[in-house]
């Protein structure tokens, strides 16, 4: 069930990206797309009644665990998402300094 929600969220972000002309709205839909992708990645590794992959001693290695690899991938991807969002916002700020608007249609008129 969560995978359907993740894919719908991913598609929502893509739709927002294709239709919006406001720079900040495009960055927001980029983030929505990434959050949807991260939920999908974690849902790929989920096991019903598995427990979190953290052990206190090697004795309890035999229990049923969730797959730790997707969690490692999402940890890296979240911080990459922050990097690109910070950069996109910096570009948004420099666009606003130059054209005094966030709307790309108005920017085209000024060009």
């Amino acid at each position: 069930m969560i995978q359907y929600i993740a894919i719908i969220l991913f598609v929502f972000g893509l739709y927002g990206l294709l239709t919006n002309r406001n720079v900040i709205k495009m960055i927001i839909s980029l983030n929505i797309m990434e959050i949807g992708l991260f939920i999908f990645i974690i849902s790929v590794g989920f096991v019903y009644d598995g427990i979190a992959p953290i052990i206190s001693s090697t004795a309890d290695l035999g229990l049923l665990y969730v797959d730790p690899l997707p969690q490692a991938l999402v940890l890296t991807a979240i911080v990459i998402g922050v990097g690109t969002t910070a950069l996109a916002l910096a570009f948004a700020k420099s666009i606003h300094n130059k054209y005094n608007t966030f709307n790309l249609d108005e920017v085209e008129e000024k060009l």
Partner: protein
Amino acid sequence: MSAILLVAVPLLAAFLSILGKKLAPYLLLVVGLFNIIILFFVPEGIVIIGGFEQPIGISLLLDTYSRLALLLINGLIVLISFMNLGKYKKYAGILLLAMAGLNGMLLTNDLFNLFVFLEISGIAAYLISSSNKRPVKTFHYLVLGVVGSSLFLFGVVILYSMYGTLNMVDMIQKINLVGNYSELILPFTLMFIGLGVEAKLLPFNSWVKGVLGESNTLSGPMIGGVYAGAFGFVLGRYITNLFMFEGNLLLVVTVLLSLGILVGEAMAYSSSKAREILLFSSVAQASIVALLFVNGVILWAVYYIMAAAISKTILFFVINKATKEVGSDEIDQLQGLFVNNKVVGVAYTLITLSVMGLPLLVGFTIKINFLTQLAAGDQIWLIIVILLATLVEGIYFVRMLIKLWYKGNNEINVSYCNPLKIIFVIIALAFLTFGVYQTPLNNLDNSIDTVMEVVDNG
């Protein structure tokens, strides 16, 4: 002396360059030369990282294919940083990171690791293109790049959920084992789109006109030459080893790519700006490269990428330098550019003729060989498309050359310093010698092989 130094040393230099801003440009040159020298001594095969066997940990793969790619990329980055020695000091740290990202992308044997290096070199490319002072166009490039790498990550995760591994060699073995081709269409399409955005393939290259159209002597050669070459190699490695295009998917991809060639050539033909002609011809070249790899032509596609990357770097540099001093890149304004700098003009003409594929130049031998290989695979339609593209290419390049050589109304005095002239002449002569003397190109034929052969005998 393992291949990991090609990524670790530029990273270390980049982290240290933030402490001493002034020494960064020289650090860039030193590290670039260090990489080139290392490349001749690094042994081939799988390099394991972190001490864990293949499928558990991450591993790098060095074979003749990636060694040629690394030589091209590091050589061109050193050349470009040498050409822009005085200017763009602020971008030295970013160029170091771009070098680390591209080296990592060409070496890595792990799918998620490729996504991480895709992001690093992508962000380095956005920052290099921000030197054109066009925030809106760089923003479009950033959005398209991030969407592309998110789709690539989506494809990688689907492959992981199906086959349980992230290592490319392990993945190939598992796919051949299961052999159920129909369910692989979705992940391969997503990954092909992800790589296609940066590799300038047709439906996703709307950013190219904006970024390269107003490029300068740093971002033009870097994104037009180096990045195009690097992503050509990565796309080639994944098309030949991982993606299996068959049936109607192959048809769709072939039609899309040939459309990319024709649209690229048509746009170049119709444009009157020097930089736009160059960028549309490099879009067409990127689609030709992808088409060759899809049809199994590996060796001559590799030479085609190398020739295209080197020539585009030089052409973009010459045009951007002239545009900066003249003020506009309309061909009519640049008329008579080579009248008073003959040496640069001769080198520029030789390289353009080689891009067109005129006999006696390396472009011709490459084109003839991959056309014969395509003919062997009886791809008649592709040959017609490529020949048509060559014809259109010939027309607009000759038209540009004529304008650049004959004196127009206003006097243009663009100055290129002497060391640059020497570089241009050396490269033009190299294009000439390899055009005539082909044996070194042929004897490399058997050693360029797919990943699996490296693993079996590696």
